[in-house]
Structure formats: C-alpha cells, structure tokens
C-alpha cells in the first residue's frame, strides 16, 4: 500500500516545530500501520479494536497535554491537535476513544479532582490500564444538559 503523503497545499508543515512534526509523523505512521489495515473489519463487525489501546498509550495519546509526573506526554496543544487529526484520518471512532479518554475523563480528573483522584487514576488512564467514559447526555436531555434528571443524594452518595 502507498503510504499517505499528507495534504498540505500551503506548506503548513513549515509552521510546525520539530516536536510537533515528530508527533504528527509518528501518529501518521501508527494510523497507516495499525488502524487502516484492520479498521474495515471492525467497522463491519461493530467492534472497537481494544488491542490498539496499549500502543496508543505508549505513543502518549492519552491525556497528551497533562504533566509527565502522571505518565502523560506533556505536549503542547498543537501537537495534541495533530494527534487527533492523524488518528481521525484512520477512523473517527478511534479518535473518539482518545478524545473521551483525554478530554472528557483525564481532563476533568486533573482539573476538578482531588490529589488522591489524580494520583490514583491519571497514571492508569495514561497507560491505558484503565479506560474511562463521560456521562452527561440523557435520553431526554441532549443539547440542553442543564435540564438533567440524574441526581445524587447525600447519605453516602446515591446516584439514580
């Protein structure tokens, strides 16, 4: 198969620094080698290729902009954006996995969590040993999440 050469009509490449270019090229190769060969099979079967998770973790694709002390890659936001771009060149579903893990699980734990939450969960999530999800949308509240019905009560905490 011919490797993807990129689409860059305005030489945007020249606006990227060395680290950003390296990240882009690494993820581009990952997409060629590991996503494209298997994606149609998974798309037909309706399955997520879980075997990609450790490889994605090794390349720093989870919580990419968060601090190294949690096992994260501490990239800048342009490099993180390039990760998303190159993953989605393979498949939006694989990019969605990384988006949720990074932006909707690790980011809130890092931003709103206690030190104990961060110390416990972030290294596990960065290494792909734990997977996270983000539950905001409800059947009757999509675009208008302020109306959510899900509620917590204090006794311990009960969610229903």
């Amino acid at each position, binding site marked *: 198969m011919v490797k993807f050469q990129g689409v860059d009509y305005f030489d*945007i490449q020249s606006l990227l620094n060395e680290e950003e270019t390296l990240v882009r090229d690494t993820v581009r190769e990952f997409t060629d080698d590991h996503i494209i060969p298997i994606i149609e099979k998974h798309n037909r079967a309706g399955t997520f290729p879980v075997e990609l998770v450790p490889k994605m973790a090794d390349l720093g694709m989870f919580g990419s902009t968060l601090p190294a002390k949690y096992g994260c890659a501490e990239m800048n936001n342009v490099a993180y954006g390039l990760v998303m771009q190159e993953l989605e060149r393979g498949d939006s*579903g694989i990019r969605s996995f990384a*988006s949720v893990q990074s932006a909707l699980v690790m980011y809130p734990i890092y931003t709103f969590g206690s030190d104990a939450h961060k110390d416990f969960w972030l290294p596990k999530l960065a290494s792909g040993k734990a*997977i996270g*999800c983000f539950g905001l949308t409800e059947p009757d509240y999509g675009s208008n999440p302020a109306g959510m019905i899900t509620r917590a009560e204090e006794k311990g905490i009960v969610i229903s």
Partner: protein
Amino acid sequence: MWITNGTLADVAVVWAKLNGVIHGFLVEKGRKGFTAPEMTGKHSLRASVTSELIFQDCEIPKENMLPKTDGLKAPLMCLNQARYGIAWGAVGSAMACYDAALGYAKSRIQFGKPIASFQLIQEKLVHMLTEITKGQLLTLRLGRMKDKGELRFQQVSMAKRNNVHHALEIARTAREILGANGILDEYPVMRHMANLESVKTYEGTHEMHTLIVGEDITGIPAYV
C-alpha cells in the same frame, strides 16, 4: 444514553445534580446499581463502543465527588476540550477522503480519459482541497491561541462547526467522485461519511455551535 466507551470503562465521570447543583462523580465499574449495556444498531462510529449508563440507587463514597465541580460550567469546560480535538480530527477525515478521491480520479478512465481530466471533477477536487486548507489554518491558529491561553470557547465552537461541516461535505463529494465504488468498504470514504454524521451531532450539534457564535457576535442568546 449515548456514552462513548461506556461498556469498556473502568471509571465513569458522571454528572448529576446534588441539591439542585450539577457536580461530577467518579463511578467505578462494578458498583452495585451501575450497569453500562452497549447500544446496537448504529450506522455510524461502528468501530467505537456506545453505551447506556444505568444507575439505580448506586451508592458511592463521598470522596468520589470531583471537589472542584460546581454547576454546568465544569462539564462544559470538558466539552470545550473535546471540541478542540474534534476540530482537528475532522480535518483528518477530510484529508483521507480527498486523498482517496484524487487517487481514484487520476486512475479511473471514462470516455477514454481519466475522470480527473473533466472540469466538473477538477472543480470538486479544488473545492475539497481549498476547504481542507482553510480548516488546517483554522486549527493551527486555534492551537497556537490555546497554547498562549488566549483561546475563547466561542472560537472553538466556530472551528468545530466549520471543520465538521466541511469534512462531511468533502466525504460526500469524494463518494460522488468514486461513483459506485464509493459505497464499498474497499474505500474509506463511506465509513468517514457515516462517522462524520455522529461527529456533527456530538459535543454540541452544528446548530448549538451556531447559536453559541451567534450569541457571541450579537449579544443576544437565541437558545429558547
């Protein structure tokens, strides 16, 4: 409902009202009263797990509340992070579709010539490449502003709205260029097209982003 990775997840960041105020809670897999069955029947994002999270008197320790969450702003900040990535991701889908369409147009012969030699096909390819280039410039600028801490969420909305809209249009145009072959999974185009239908809706629909930018430029909220 509609929760990506729900069934796979070891931990769920769940948003719920406590005394009327929205807070975030960490709910681990296996807690009594919490299940996450997978949703089926999707025509889009088929290689991604989408689930329903069901809570029935699920008890968690008090420490599982994310202490710095207080109201809708916290989950919206998360969505803003995700949308930023989606604005970039959509460009990736569009690049894959353009690349497939360009290669195909140069090799497919009709009327004795490659279809790339017809003006109507060239117009389609030029339009695709122009929109990709604009999307790339938008995301790069977005990233540089975010790195400087200057980025406003309304700008993220504009970029998500624009890039996903054009990626979907590019996927559809690529499908046209591939003719009947465009509907086969031998080519990536139809998969990207179907995926982008979800991407256009999740993390704030195209319409909601229109309203966000609309409010920003007019000062008038038009949500209700």
